[in-house]
């Protein structure tokens, strides 16, 4: 024994390393794990049961409330022109403030060299306005006019009555509807001829808009033909430009639409019942949604796991709020599809000013609904997924102890996205909202 211990020092270090390396190599050689996988159902737990449950409004919903006034028309990517449209006699004008005129252009001189010329002048041009021919109501020619605004106006807050309508400053138009204006020209737009109209202007007329810092700078575009509503999707000021480098060449420069807003004379009252989404300023609908934690049916569920069954968050595969579309008043009826979002209301008591959480929709980009659902196809089924909400509701407080929201808000995406709004039938009646749940249940997993 003693001799053996004494021989330890004679043990070759390389020997130990060699033995260790062999074990390590064997270990690494088989490191690619592939779990044994069976296709024998006899070795698997009992098959789960998946079923649908439809809950009537009384079993999940309450406290529907519609709120308006979110965002402003100036935030829209579109505008509206209307005159005496629908029973409400909707009038709507589009106000535009153009960007500064270009200060330089690139021109080829007599040697065909491209040069930048800052000594340029403008001698007329035209305002071009683009329309959505499908979303506009007219099928024939309509007359339009453009005029120069004479009153200082505030694009984010301007409306039919006021040129500026902020908490600190409220300035009425001398004439409701953005007037008076300096009439510049009129044109006829025939959708059969194209999707745009040009208002040609002379040098003096163009010069009216050369200073975007002038608070009165702007053009008012109006529809002269009664009974129509047009959707404006773009516009700009094209300028005839002359360069001193090559005076014989006519150049076209562009002053873009820096700020665009629409003003209209009909205010939609809040709905007496039902739900409303969209518009500009926008409408939102808030409602409380309770996901039941105990189920006593249907029979398939009771047969699988017994009833009453305590529903857990992970049991819910899908939750969809089923709504039936309703036709809003014609003046505000969508003529194109609209996109709806649903978000949790973080503080119901703070409505209408409560913040809302992230979108509950799987794609986060909104649910597109055909515009016809709010017109000829009134009563169409629109199902809004709220699976994330339902699961959070049943999960209870988060790790920080915060309770999950119990209220959701329906709104347009983005907000605002359109002058028009959509409506849905509310509680009561055959078209009241329904909550559809897809639930999967199975007996608890057990050790065999």
């Amino acid at each position: 024994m003693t001799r053996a211990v004494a021989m330890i020092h004679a043990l070759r270090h390389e020997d130990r390393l060699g033995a260790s390396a062999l074990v390590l190599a064997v270990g690494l050689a088989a490191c690619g794990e592939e779990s044994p996988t069976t296709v024998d159902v006899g070795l698997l737990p009992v098959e789960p049961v998946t079923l649908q449950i439809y809950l009537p409004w009384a079993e999940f919903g309450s406290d529907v409330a519609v709120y308006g006034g979110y965002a402003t028309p100036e935030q829209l990517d579109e505008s509206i022109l209307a005159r005496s449209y629908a029973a409400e006699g909707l009038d709507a004008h589009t106000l535009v403030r153009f960007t500064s005129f270009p200060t330089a252009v690139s021109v080829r001189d007599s040697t065909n060299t491209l040069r930048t010329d800052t000594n340029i002048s403008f001698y007329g041009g035209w305002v071009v306005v683009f329309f959505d021919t499908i979303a506009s109501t007219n099928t024939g020619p309509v007359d339009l006019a453009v005029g120069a605004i004479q009153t200082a106006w505030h694009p984010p807050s301007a409306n039919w009555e006021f040129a500026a309508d902020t908490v600190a400053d409220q300035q009425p138009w001398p004439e409701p509807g953005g007037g008076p204006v300096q009439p510049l020209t009129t044109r006829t737009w025939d959708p059969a001829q194209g999707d745009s109209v040009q208002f040609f202007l002379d040098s003096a007329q163009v010069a009216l808009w050369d200073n975007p810092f002038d608070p009165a700078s702007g053009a008012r575009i109006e529809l002269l033909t009664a009974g129509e509503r047009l959707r404006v999707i773009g516009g700009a000021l094209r300028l005839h430009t002359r360069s001193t480098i090559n005076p014989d060449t006519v150049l076209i420069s562009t002053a873009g639409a820096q700020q665009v807003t629409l003003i209209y004379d009909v205010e939609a009252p809040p709905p007496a019942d039902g739900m409303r989404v969209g518009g500009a300023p926008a409408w939102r609908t808030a409602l409380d949604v309770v996901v039941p934690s105990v189920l006593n049916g249907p029979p398939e569920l009771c047969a699988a796991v017994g009833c009453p069954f305590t529903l857990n968050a992970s049991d819910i595969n899908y939750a969809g709020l089923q709504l039936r579309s309703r036709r809003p008043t014609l003046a505000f009826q969508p003529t194109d599809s609209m996109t709806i979002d649903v978000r949790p209301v973080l503080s119901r008591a703070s409505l209408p000013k409560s913040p809302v959480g992230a979108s509950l929709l799987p794609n986060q980009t909104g649910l597109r609904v055909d515009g016809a659902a709010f017109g000829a196809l009134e009563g169409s089924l629109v199902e809004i997924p709220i699976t994330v909400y339902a699961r959070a509701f049943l999960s209870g407080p988060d790790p920080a102890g915060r309770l999950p929201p119990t209220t959701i808000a329906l709104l347009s995406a983005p907000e605002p996205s359109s002058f028009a709004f959509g409506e849905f039938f509310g509680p009561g009646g055959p078209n009241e909202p329904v909550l559809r749940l897809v639930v999967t249940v199975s007996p608890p997993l057990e050790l065999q």
Partner: protein
Amino acid sequence: MTPRSLVLTACLLGAAAPVDGQSIFNAAGFGLPVEALDGRARALGSFGIGLQGAGMLPTDPAAAARVLLPTGVIVVQPTWVDFSQEGVSDHDYYQGIRFPLLAIAYPVYRGALMLNLASVFDQSYAGQRTAEVELGGTTYPVVDQFEQEGSVSQISLGYARMIGERFSLGFSVGHYAGTVAQSLVRSYEAAGEDAIEPYLSTGSWRYSGESVTGGASVELWGIVRVAGSATWSTDLDANATGETQGGDQTLKFPLQLRLGASAILTPGLNLSASAVRADWSAAAEELGGTAGTTLGLGVGLELSQTSLFGREAPLRLGYRRAALPFPIAGDDVKEEILSGGLALVFSQANGVVLATTDVGVEKGRRTGGGLTEDFWRGTVSLRLAAF
């Protein structure tokens, strides 16, 4: 212990990775028994008892009495499996690696103190099932994916010593530990637009239990060694953890009896045989199965005077067959193995092996319940002494 030995011990402990699933028979009962054997025992078809020389296997505590120097053993065991099912033409292949044994023995008080970390049951496996679900007139294909990941291990502390020159006794006290986690996921593969979220059900359990193993061995006429051991265990309790809705489970561990012997037939030729027996019928009642008494038998031959590259390299051959304790699909499971292997002695001094690697290669088959696994299994153990 020297600082160097402490570092080595720490490395060995760190290498004791969780057992990975290597058999579909892990699905039966409490799983597939994983015997904590080294490369030598595997090559000889042994159940780890009655082999010549000093040993550090948990199944033969008395053999540690012959350990003269501080010694450590770590075992690596890769497996390659070809799985087939009755009536199914396709085969499935999987592989894995486990570290079934980590053992340390330290001479003290005219005997040896032992610390073992050993695998007991392997429970990891997975399964998949396809189905169809009809929702509102629309049929959705669904996939149920089940996974079970877990194992039962044992840590034991023991002592062994010689009584005279031929007789040795050993015992150990062990604690069973481990966890198993199950998950069942139902996925709605083709329901992307409807955004149907997967269903998830989970459960997890933690194991606990105790055991005592006692053993004795005797050398007869200088050429025969006979050894026996018995392991008594408390119930192995599986207690649900966290939000597991499934119930607790208890495995009534039977008394396990082992008997082994080896003999030097001629100089350089050893014959070994071993058997293990346990009555699992009480456990079967708990599990609702039909397990009964299981018996395992193994025999082996060792040519101890062979050499390779100028180093001593004993050659081994073995055969064993055993019944596994838990039935699968209502059928008993049997295992049959042919084995072989060798040792590479890297260093020895005055007849005391200081560094050796034992390699065992097994070609085996498990059958039961219409399921068959043909497997190759390697077992490589590294044994270092006087660290």
